[in-house]
């Protein structure tokens, strides 16, 4: 059995104190990545600080500025939240694609992005929605655009002593169709071999792709062709995604397969979301 300390935190100041002074201190929310990672030797935790009881992190609300999703809110809670279903269903799709139903009763959005898998199902939708990550520490708060949050596989912009408090999706909402589609070896539980989010913003489109680069990335070449040059041949536009990615071969698929599938899913996404 692994040996470490466990502290059930009751307020954020306690969290900051423990994170500032200790080494190998990990925040525990849903734990669905952390448990596997610790057992597999990825994390050598000396202390787990349980943050899921903190009221500040349980916030799930919509106000005049947008939607705020606290770090302790589970993926199933997000999928069922009416303002998400109505205004940003692409995020509900992304949340719904993670793991299985029972995993999503524990797993959180903040955990999914902090784990920073290049294949994170929620990351590509967030990249299409201009989301930002609210980070807190003993020295204050800062907001990081989702596009700058991921810095490499398993790496984020979080510094020592910092905690993700919430994820914010601003208004205006897209008011148009968005789809998240995923190629994976099994219908559920498996990570994405390729994940593609395509969000229409009227006559403009935003596209983000996962599992084909060290971090989730925007398909800027495709976006430019459609948004600036008026490309309406979706098959032609989708080919350009190859300029934006650098996939690897791993157990889920070869580099060549990923090149192929990402193009297919971008084309289908454009067909489903952009009218012609």
């Amino acid at each position, binding site marked *: *059995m*692994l*040996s*470490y*300390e*466990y502290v*059930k935190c009751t307020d954020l100041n306690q969290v900051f104190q423990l994170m500032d002074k200790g080494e190998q201190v990990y925040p*525990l929310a849903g*734990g*669905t990545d952390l*448990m*596997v990672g610790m*057992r597999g030797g990825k994390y050598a935790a000396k202390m*787990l600080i*349980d943050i899921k009881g903190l009221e500040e992190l349980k916030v799930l609300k919509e106000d005049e500025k947008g939607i705020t999703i606290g770090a302790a809110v589970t993926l*199933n809670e997000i999928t069922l939240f009416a303002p998400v279903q109505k205004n940003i269903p692409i995020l509900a799709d992304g949340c719904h694609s993670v*793991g*299985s*139903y*029972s*995993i999503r*009763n*524990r797993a959180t959005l903040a955990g999914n992005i902090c784990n920073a898998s290049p294949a994170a199902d929620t990351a590509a939708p967030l990249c299409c929605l201009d989301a930002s990550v609210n980070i807190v520490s003993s020295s204050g708060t800062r907001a990081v655009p989702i596009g700058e949050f991921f810095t490499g596989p398993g790496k984020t912009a979080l510094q020592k002593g910092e905690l993700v408090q919430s994820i914010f999706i601003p208004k205006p909402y897209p008011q148009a169709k968005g789809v998240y589609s995923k190629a994976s070896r099994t*219908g*559920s*539980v498996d990570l994405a071999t390729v994940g593609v989010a395509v969000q229409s913003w009227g006559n403009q489109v935003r596209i983000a792709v996962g599992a084909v680069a060290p971090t989730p990335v925007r398909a800027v070449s495709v976006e430019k062709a459609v948004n600036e040059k008026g490309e309406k041949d979706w098959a032609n536009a989708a080919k350009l995604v190859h300029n934006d990615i650098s996939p690897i071969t791993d157990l889920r698929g070869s580099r060549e397969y990923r090149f192929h599938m990402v193009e297919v899913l971008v084309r289908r996404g454009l067909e489903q979301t952009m009218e012609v």
Partner: protein
Amino acid sequence: MSEKVNINFSVNGDQETREAVVGQTLLKFIRDELHLTGTKEGCEIGECGACIVLLNGKPVNSCMVLAVELDGQELVTIEGLAKNGELDRIQQAFIDHAAFQCGYCTPGMIISARALLDRKPSPTDEDINEALSGNLCRCGAYQEIREAIKASSKK
């Protein structure tokens, strides 16, 4: 040097106070400390669903929860479904429809199915697929499991 923590919780309707070792999973705690061995250990990485229990009414993989996290929570295991010696409707339906062969996945399947029927008394095929998305049956009894759930649904 494994630290122990006192935890208060309810299990299958009974209030309990126990010591839990930090680092022990809820799955091990249920089997080795509470001696409720209906909950099964399969993959231990949250993929198979053999260890699913109800935590505050929601199905979760007990291999991915720490025993210490049980403090203040409400736990229901497969042993908690039968009341006064009477099987729960969904348990009887699994027997009536022969919804298993080896039976190893069955406790997790039944817990997931019970939770589904609690939130959606008349589930569609799609609802069933979603609810059981984290439950693997390597004997391949999926069709019979679906029939058992349908038979337990409100018409």
